[in-house]
Every structure is written in structure tokens, then in C-alpha cells.
């Protein structure tokens, strides 16, 4: 009985303090608290995720990381993202670095049903393979088509809604594109076939300022090289 009353008092305290603050502040601080709790629990299992420098691709491909680096099979050393003084790169360039605008919309190739936009929540770029069912389905469809058409390359363009700064949206759009890229790679698509780009909030799919419009603009779009 006492325990129940203690819990009731705790809930009352939390509700009183929460009501003093705006909803957005509560959301932000809850996210912050969630991150710390998550890190604390992870650290119990030895998964400490402090900042670290990547000296090689092996370092980066840690057991808990979800990001996958570019294929450096042509690299002369194991180091990733290091260019030597002579100017020769030590990593393979993706083949699809040509002008994004020269890539085709999937509808031009009659495969738009396989390349539906992937949408995101506000400020989010992470796709949970278990809970984000619709996003995973769309990416799976894209992966299947790409496996069936090995000569095609894909450009993933990350976009954001209008509400945050241009600088923030540049990076957020990039994260969204890279998230989809990582999942495509995990589905067996060669990294060299995938390029990413971020347009931030500069190329909205819809104009306007409403929740519906914003939702349509927070997306990753697919474009394809000609077959």
C-alpha cells in the first residue's frame, strides 16, 4: 500500500513539473534523458560509445555501429578517409558522382512502384528495422529492383522540411540519405552503386506551412542512372 502511494506521489510530482514547461521542451529533454539512459544501460554491457578517432576501416566497423563505410577494396592501405600527400586517394570512389540532375526519376524507367519515397519524423533520421515497417518495406522494394538490375546505380537525396536552419537541414538531409544507403548495403547492394546527397530544405516536394506539407518534405528520394 505504501509503495502504491509512493508511486502515486512520484507521478504527481512529475506531472506538476512537466506542466510548467512547454511541450517541445519536455520532448527535447526527454530525448536527452533517453539518450543518457540508453548509454548508461549500454555501458553495463561494455558498449561505451564515447567519441573516438577512426584510424582504419576495421576500427569503424565496430560491432554496434550501424553505418557502413565506402568500399575501400581498391585502397592501397587500410585507412579510410585519409588522402596521402601525393594526392592519390586511398579509397574507392563511388561510380555515380555525376550530376544528380542527370539521373532519372524512377517513373521515367517505369519502376516508380519500386522506389517510393521514404519519410521521416521531425528531426529524425534513424530507421528502426523492427518498428519502421513501412520505411523498411519501401527500401526492401528498392533493393530488390536494384538486385534485378545490377547495371543501374542509385542516387539517394535527403530532404527536410522548412522549419530548421539551412545548416542543420544540410546535415539532417545527409543523415537521412545515408541511413537509407546503409540499409540498402545491408540488403546486399554494393556501396559503389549508391551515392547520397542532401538538399536540406531547398527542394521541397510541396510548398506550404502545415504539418501535412512538412511531412511530405521530410523524405529520401530515389533517382536512377539510365539502364
Amino acid at each position: 500500500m505504501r509503495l502504491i502511494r509512493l508511486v502515486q506521489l512520484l507521478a504527481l510530482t512529475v506531472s506538476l513539473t512537466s506542466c510548467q514547461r512547454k511541450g517541445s521542451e519536455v520532448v527535447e529533454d526527454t530525448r536527452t534523458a533517453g539518450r543518457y539512459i540508453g548509454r548508461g544501460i549500454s555501458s553495463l554491457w561494455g558498449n561505451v560509445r564515447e567519441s573516438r578517432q577512426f584510424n582504419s576501416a576495421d576500427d569503424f566497423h565496430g560491432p554496434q555501429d550501424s553505418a557502413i563505410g565506402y568500399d575501400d577494396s581498391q585502397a592501397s592501405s587500410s585507412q579510410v578517409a585519409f588522402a596521402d600527400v601525393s594526392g592519390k586517394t586511398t579509397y574507392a570512389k563511388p561510380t555515380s558522382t555525376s550530376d544528380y540532375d542527370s539521373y532519372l526519376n524512377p517513373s521515367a524507367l517505369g519502376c516508380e512502384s519500386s522506389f517510393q519515397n521514404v519519410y521521416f519524423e521531425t528531426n529524425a533520421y534513424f530507421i528502426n528495422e523492427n518498428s519502421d515497417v513501412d520505411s523498411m518495406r519501401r527500401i526492401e522494394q528498392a533493393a530488390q529492383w536494384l538486385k534485378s538490375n545490377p547495371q543501374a546505380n542509385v542516387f539517394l537525396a535527403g530532404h527536410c522540411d522548412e522549419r530548421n536552419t539551412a545548416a542543420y537541414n544540410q546535415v539532417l538531409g545527409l543523415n537521412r540519405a545515408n541511413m537509407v544507403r546503409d540499409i540498402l548495403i545491408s540488403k546486399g547492394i554494393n556501396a559503389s552503386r549508391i551515392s547520397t546527397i542532401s538538399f536540406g530544405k531547398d527542394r521541397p516536394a510541396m510548398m506550404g506551412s502545415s504539418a501535412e506539407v512538412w511531412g511530405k518534405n521530410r523524405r529520401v528520394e530515389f533517382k536512377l542512372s539510365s539502364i
Partner: protein
Amino acid sequence: MRFSVFFFLLIALPCLADEPIVVKLKTDSSLLPLYLSCPESLKDVASILRFDLSYSGKTQVLATDAAKESQIEADLRVKRFSQAAWKKFGAAYVVSVREKDNKLEAYIYQTDSNQLRVLSDWELGSDAGEIRRRVHNLSDAIFKNFFGIEGIASTRMLFTARTSAGHNEVFEADYDGANMRQVTSEEADCLNPVYLPAKSGYTPGSFFYVSYRKGQPRIYIAPLRSGKGKAVCRIPANQFMPMPNKSRSKLAFVTDPLGRADLFVQDFDPEIGLLGKPQQIFTAYRTTASSPSFSPDGSKLAFISDKTGSPRVYMMRVPVSGGDCSQVNLELVSKESTENTCCAWSPDGKKIAYTAMTKGVRQIWVYDIATRKETQLTKGGEHKENPTWSANSLHLMYDSHADGGTCSLWLHPLAVPTPVKIVAASKNARFASLEPRSI
């Protein structure tokens, strides 16, 4: 039971009282009144001088009136200013500009010290652009005489603006928005222009920028004269936010070769380009970093990271080239504000400016490094972003827009409560970078 109630109230009361502390930046109390006198024949010169001295960050130009003009004429006749009279008028400084033999002659007077100086033989030049430049130089000479530091009237700025073709190219203009010219001809969107600081005694001749001309955004360096950029960084990935340090020895930037936007720093030589290997100086699981900004001595870097959920401003020591980054110590800067972006370290090293979401609107905040206090600089309903400091650290310039609207550029002296619009929203002007100088 009573103890339980007491215990929870003890916890709850501080939380209930936990209102964010907002300290408004002190404004007009530090501006010194200045009286400017120019004859009607020098109306255009007067307009430029009035703007420069009104937004110098140290002075507030008084309104013209007949009594003060009479006093000026009397003082000029005897080539001596009356300290008593100007103290009575409440003018800390007096500037009187006259034309003599097709050149300008400026009498500049400090009331408190009763000191009079004459800047003479100030040639104006022939075309309108040259006249503006010379008058801006005069403004800076006046400012330096009064305060012993360089003004910003003759500095330039870079920014991106939309062309008739619909692309955002890099433009350059005087700091007041005049003499605007398109610098790049990428025929693609450009972002993040930033001057490469010049060596001592020179003004910048080159700049970095990001262009989408090759599809993915890449960092380029171009001479201001031609605007023809050359790729700087060979990493085959998206590249953003180039930021050189003041000594031109390092370039910080954001890139994602490892599938996540991370901070990199690489040694740089203005004659050769990037040297050695780019060094990834900060990364964390499911975290992105952006907006790097060096301290003036180059030893520290301020940047934005969302490692704790909401993007915040952090500081870290810049590691030695090739040094170990496995034990990085970050210092959180923005404790009061949240959802921060676009940080910029002031040239004097004393402050960091950034944006923060404030009651639903993005405002510019300033962090004082010595006092560790955050203060809100801007107000109003439009979103502000991309703050950039003037060379003397007395001003911020930023772009501002309403929801869904295009961006305009605003100049905001820290000591003045309201900013002044420099470039109109019709241009969609963004990403301003004010010219650095050796101050």
C-alpha cells in the same frame, strides 16, 4: 508517509521553480553620441557617413539641428571647437566634413579630451562605387581615431543569393549591401562561402564555398577576382561547411565518407592546398556534428553536436595533426538554450554566437566565454540563422526569414537594440561571411 510527502516536495519545489534564465543583452547604454555635420552639397557622402557611424557599434549619430550647425560654423571659423558647448549639446564626438579643392576635409573632435584632428586631402574618386569605397575608408579612419580600433565600414561580405536562373550563387558586396556583384558562375547551388583570411597587411583575395556543380556538394576555393573555383578536398563524399582558421594553417569541414556527417580537420597551405591527411576529430554513435568554428588562436573548435539528443554547442581542443583523438573532452557551451545550430566564434575570442529555438522562433544568442553567460541578442517573429562576426567583434550579421519566406541579411551591432536590413528578401540572401581583417 509524512516523510515521503516531504521528500517528494523537496524534490518537486526546485523543479517547479526551474524557469529558464534569460538575460537580455545590454544595448544602447554603451553607445556614445556623435554629431555629424555635412553641407547639402555632400548629401551622398553624408548618407554613407551617417550609416557607417550609426552602425559602427560604438556611436549613435544625433539628429541634425540648427543650433549645433551654428556652433559648427563658429568653431570652424576659429579652427577650434568649444568643449563647453559640445558638452552642453551632449555630444561625445563631433565630425564635420567639408569639401575643399574637390577633396574632403574632416574635422573630428573628442569632447572629453578636447582633442581636434583634421583628416584632409581625402580624394573621392570618379564613379559611384569608388566614392562609396573612399567614404567608407574615411568612416573607418574616423572610427580608428576615436577608438583606436579598426572599423568595419570598408569591409566586404560574401553571401549566397538567388539568380534569375534560379540558382544560389556566391555574391560579394560592401558590408552595407552596396556594390553587389555575382562572384561565381557555377550554374548550380552554392552554400557556405567563407573568406580565406589574408596574411598580415593584406585583404582577403580568395574564398571557400560549397557547390553542387558535380552533383554532390563539394568544397571549392576560388579567387575573388575570377570566382572560378577549384576542388579542395579529395574525399569522395558530401562536403559541407568549410572553415579555415585565422592563421590559414588548417581547414575544418563536415563530410560523410564513413556514412555519417562528421567533423574533419586538415592541414592547409594557401599556396598548395590541403596537406597530409584529413583527420576525423569527433564522432559518436548516432550523432552528427556540424558548423565548425575555430577560436582566433586556432587551439579550439566550437561546433554543433546532437550527441545528447538536442543539437547543442560544444567546444573542444583541436588535436595535433595526426594526434590521438580517442579521449576527446568536450565542453558544453549552450546550457540554457536548446536546438542550437550555426555557431561562430568571435574574432576577439571572447564570445560565441549561435542560433537557438526560443519560444518557437530561432533567435541569435551570444555566449560570453569569460562569464559563461548566454544572452539572447535578437527578438521578433522571424527566424534568424547563420550568424557571422564583423572583424572587430562588435557586430553580427545573419539571415532572417518568416516561415516559408525568403531570407534577408541583417547587420546587428551588439550595442544596438535593433538591427538594420542590408540585403532584401527578394534576393534570398543567406550564409553571410564578413571579411576578416587583421585587427
